[in-house]
């Protein structure tokens, strides 16, 4: 059995806004094993980013972690002091944001932004830190690192900026990397470059990674396990193959079929009716029930628990075992 690195239990993070309390994350359970890549999949408003921010305890105001446990290396991060947490942020757990043009400070040079992170966690001289920063830029394959390091973010392309953001995240060789849609704003050919780079770095440095994305293609490619979120709750969690070939939650299934595929051409796409739910007054019971074709009376009344139906495969659906969902990829291929 692989060693567990991070476990989230019953996490609730709410935002107190003028319109009401937004229950962005409402009882999420996740675990990450050392050295693995966990794909955290969901659409906008599913709570995937908020979950990641909660792990670092940097949920921006008016957001607040209401309850739950975030256990990292057997210690609950939610009980730690702010000072102790600073030792973890950037050193043990690092974060890569979606849009490098907003996550890099526009008024500081690349050198400035890399050095401060290195110096915050390592007891070395400024000169050594600078050498290390250039080393990092080489690691993320930036051409002319000793020139580019003196640039400001706006002088670099989107792909380059994301490489810098990655360099900053791995500066202190963290154990866990939280990558929040790191390639969403990039072109596909650049996305391919960045994904490959991240995978190589992850293997080389032995990090675990939580990859947050809405793109099933990306997770199919690089995730070992996948957790699917919908409206602030976990629907399903299993290894990648199982999710794609033996999904048991109707939402997971819907995500797979609603996307036009390059491989097979259909005349009509299967549609998930309705819209993303409102998280101030979320639907009663199972949050997916208004859009679910398999919903029964019970689904509207009770919230389904996340249950392990076979080793490593958890589903939050009352009818997971009754209904027979067919993978769009064909069910037979896997075993």
């Amino acid at each position, binding site marked *: 059995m692989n060693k567990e690195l991070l476990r989230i239990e019953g996490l609730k993070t709410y935002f107190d806004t003028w319109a009401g309390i937004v229950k962005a994350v409402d009882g999420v359970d996740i675990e990450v094993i050392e050295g693995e890549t966990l794909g955290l999949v969901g659409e906008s408003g599913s709570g995937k980013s908020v979950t990641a*921010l909660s792990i*670092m305890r*940097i949920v*921006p*105001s008016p957001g607040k972690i209401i309850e739950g446990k975030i256990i990292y290396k057997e210690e609950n991060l939610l009980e730690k002091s702010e000072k102790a947490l*600073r*030792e*973890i*942020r*950037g*050193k043990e757990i*690092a*974060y890569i*944001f979606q*849009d490098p043009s*907003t*996550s*890099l*400070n*526009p*008024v*500081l040079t690349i050198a400035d932004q890399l050095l*401060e*992170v290195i110096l*915050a*966690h390592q007891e070395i001289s400024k000169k050594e830190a600078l050498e290390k920063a250039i080393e990092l830029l080489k690691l993320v394959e930036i051409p002319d690192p000793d020139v580019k390091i003196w640039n*400001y973010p*706006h*002088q670099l392309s989107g792909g380059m900026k994301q490489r810098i*953001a990655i360099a*900053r*995240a791995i500066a202190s060789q963290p154990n866990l990397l939280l990558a929040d849609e790191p390639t969403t704003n990039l072109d596909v050919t650049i996305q391919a470059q960045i994904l490959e780079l991240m995978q190589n770095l992850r293997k080389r440095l032995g990090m675990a990674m939580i990859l947050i994305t809405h793109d099933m293609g990306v997770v199919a490619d690089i995730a070992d396990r996948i957790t699917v979120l919908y409206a602030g709750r976990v629907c399903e969690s299993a290894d990648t193959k199982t999710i794609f070939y033996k999904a048991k939650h109707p939402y997971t299934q819907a995500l797979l079929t609603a996307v036009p595929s390059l491989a097979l051409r259909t005349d009509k796409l299967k549609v998930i009716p309705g819209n993303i739910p409102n998280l101030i007054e979320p639907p009663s019971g199972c949050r997916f029930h208004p859009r679910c074709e398999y919903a029964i009376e019970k689904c509207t009344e009770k919230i389904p628990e996340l249950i392990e139906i076979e080793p490593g495969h958890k589903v939050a659906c009352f009818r997971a075992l009754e209904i027979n969902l067919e993978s769009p990829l064909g069910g037979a291929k896997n075993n």
Partner: protein
Amino acid sequence: MTRYIIRRLLYLIPLFLGILIIVFAATRVAGDPVRLMTAMNPHITEEARNNLTAYYGLDKPLWHQFLIYLANLLKGDLGNSYVIRGGIEVTSLIGDYIWPTMLLQIVSIILALLIAIPVGVISARRKYSKTDVTVTTTSLLGTCIPIFYMGIIVILIFAYYLGWFPAGGYVTVISESKDYFLGSRTLDIIWHMVLPVAVLTFALLAPIVLLIRSSMLEVLKQDYVLAARANGLNDRKVVYKHALRNALIPVVTYVGIYFGAMLAGAPITETVFNWPGVGRLFVQATNRLDFPVIMGITVIITLMTLIANLITDLTYGYIDPRIRVE
């Protein structure tokens, strides 16, 4: 960068000319200044009037007069006063009065910035706390109280009732019964400066604090601030290194504008505190229709405002690298 400075400087020339034309027009709206000045004098003869007009060169066409003024201005000659000290040169008159004005204004703006930045930042970081509410309420009041009213209240309390500071003036007039504060002229000036500087500083401070606060609130929501926190930087670094510099970008422009407004408001502040600066001189000159002095002071204050604007522009370029590179 040099190119940028040169461009800004050249850019100011038409601006300056435009202002000059308006001011010049203002002094000539009523026609011949001599006629205005002598309107109250029943004894003056038509001939004397004409002589005066010719003496001041007012018989030439308006555009001609303007060009002469411009040419003299380039030579550093602002003409002679019509009334003060038997037609003293305006340059030397302003030379006497400008230093108290500069002293007051520059000390106030520096103090205002030194106080406003940390206060604004603290207020933004503790949004809706007691500190924040106190700071925002006080600042809001500060933007609403007329500066002369504030001056009168302060004089009433600190000069008349408490007697801590003098009610006005620049320096004690030495007589048998009076000496400089603690026997030193410098200390005496500082002692006289306390109240006007306090009022001016507060008036400048209030809008800047509100601006920094709101700008800071905006910046603190940005991803790069979140990223800095995610990298384990301590709060001081996150706030003062990452957030503040970005928050100052929109503030800088306004500081230039407020400073210009304060300078232009010098007549009011200096009148309240009986401060011997160009502002009070301006009020006296205007009341006596002493146009060369009026023009001279306006030119000087405009130039100071333009310099403040230039400094603002350069600071802007310094803070925001995106402007610098173009």
